[in-house]
């Protein structure tokens, strides 16, 4: 009895940001405009893609949640982006440098960059994402410690850098190094059923896309808005944290952040969103 009450209360608390189950079906037919700039939030899928069209996760959120993303002034994640900007300009490490010492004004030097990651890293002989590129700069150029996963400003700085690509369509170059074989591996993982609930990424984000799973409207699981802002927890969520959350939900053991498994998934899932505008920072329920 008590339990039901608690669940009902929690559900009511969330009702302002969530839709009521069963009422929504397909993604809405609207265009996301941020501060007057039109985003590509639905577009023709690249060749070999399981869908005809790729959809931004924005199209699956409620009206209230969607509205928070249309104006950077109202977007609660912009506070984190501002923290990222401060970090960009702050000296850290033995070399006495900040990101700005080498890269100057991020609005120019980082424009479009976030849309083309993960990239092949010759030194590491594996793909790297923005988070790992930041760590590489910190270690090699700044004489600073790498950030531990999700800590020290990693999410904020990543959001700041990706925000410089707002509007730029996602496009990764799979011909770099061995990126294609990581794509292959990521694809295999995407279609493998995991955990006690025995589900693959593809079950929820491909087969069931558009359905309601309890209070959640299932999207294509795109990552063009990451790091995103989660209203429920009131903070930025990194891509690898989101992946791990979905893996945990099917009661599977989840790989470490930046592990080969999650980097392969990031390469593949990024490709699945080819052509969608970078929307960082997106806002989610």
């Amino acid at each position: 009895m008590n339990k039901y009450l608690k669940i009902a209360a929690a559900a009511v608390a969330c009702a302002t940001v969530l839709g009521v189950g069963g009422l929504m079906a397909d993604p809405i037919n609207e265009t996301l405009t941020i501060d007057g700039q039109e985003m590509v939030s639905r577009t023709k899928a690249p060749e070999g893609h399981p869908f005809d069209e790729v959809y931004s996760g924005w199209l699956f959120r409620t009206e209230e949640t969607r509205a928070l993303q249309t104006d950077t002034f109202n977007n609660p994640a912009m506070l984190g982006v501002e923290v990222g900007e401060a970090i960009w300009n702050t000296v850290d490490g033995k070399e006495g440098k900040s990101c700005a010492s080498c890269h100057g004004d991020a609005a120019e030097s980082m424009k479009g960059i976030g849309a083309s990651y993960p990239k092949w890293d010759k030194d590491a002989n594996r793909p790297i994402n923005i988070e790992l590129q930041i760590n590489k700069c910190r270690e090699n150029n700044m004489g600073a410690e790498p950030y531990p996963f999700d800590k020290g400003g990693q999410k904020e700085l990543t959001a700041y850098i990706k925000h410089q690509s707002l509007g730029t369509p996602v496009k990764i170059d799979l011909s770099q190094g061995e990126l294609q074989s990581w794509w292959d591996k990521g694809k295999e993982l995407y279609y493998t059923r995991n955990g006690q609930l025995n589900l693959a990424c593809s079950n929820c984000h491909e087969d069931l896309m558009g359905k309601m799973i309890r209070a959640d409207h299932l999207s294509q699981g795109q990552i063009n808005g990451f790091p995103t802002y989660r209203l429920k927890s009131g903070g930025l969520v990194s891509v690898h944290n989101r992946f791990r959350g979905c893996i945990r939900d099917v009661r599977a053991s989840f790989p470490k952040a930046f592990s080969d498994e999650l980097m392969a998934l990031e390469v593949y899932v990024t490709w699945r969103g080819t052509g969608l505008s970078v929307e960082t920072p997106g806002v989610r329920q």
Partner: protein
Amino acid sequence: MRASLHSAVAGLGLAIAIASGATAAEVAPADVKFTEDNTVEASLTGTPGDPAKGREVFADRRLGNCLACHANTDMKDQLFHGDVGPSLDGVASRWNEVQLRAILVDSKKVFTDATVMPGFYTLNVGINVREESVGKTIISAQDVEDVVAYLATLKE
């Protein structure tokens, strides 16, 4: 109202079972027998299912969490019913108890491997199961019996 009536009746059944010392051994997940028609004929526990308890297991997010995927008008007091699977209104008019038991134990045996519905009393699951769930089923044998008893009340 309906649920509490059932619970009283089932409670009576339970009391009789205990009184007569009938504690039939539980059937292990791997030993559940499916017939050629994809039914599971025998109770997994020998203890009659309690529909009121089954109703709780159905709704509990840590147990059945059936509302994640199925709408159920009997639970319209709860917000958010999923639409991944069919509505379970009137489900007992479409399937009988031995079929419902089979669906719950291992939905893949009834609906094919392609189904997204988890098997609730099987160890035939996905890879990399988290440590605390290894070798365990999502719900217990008695939970299955209770949910079957609850589903049996959902008639057209």
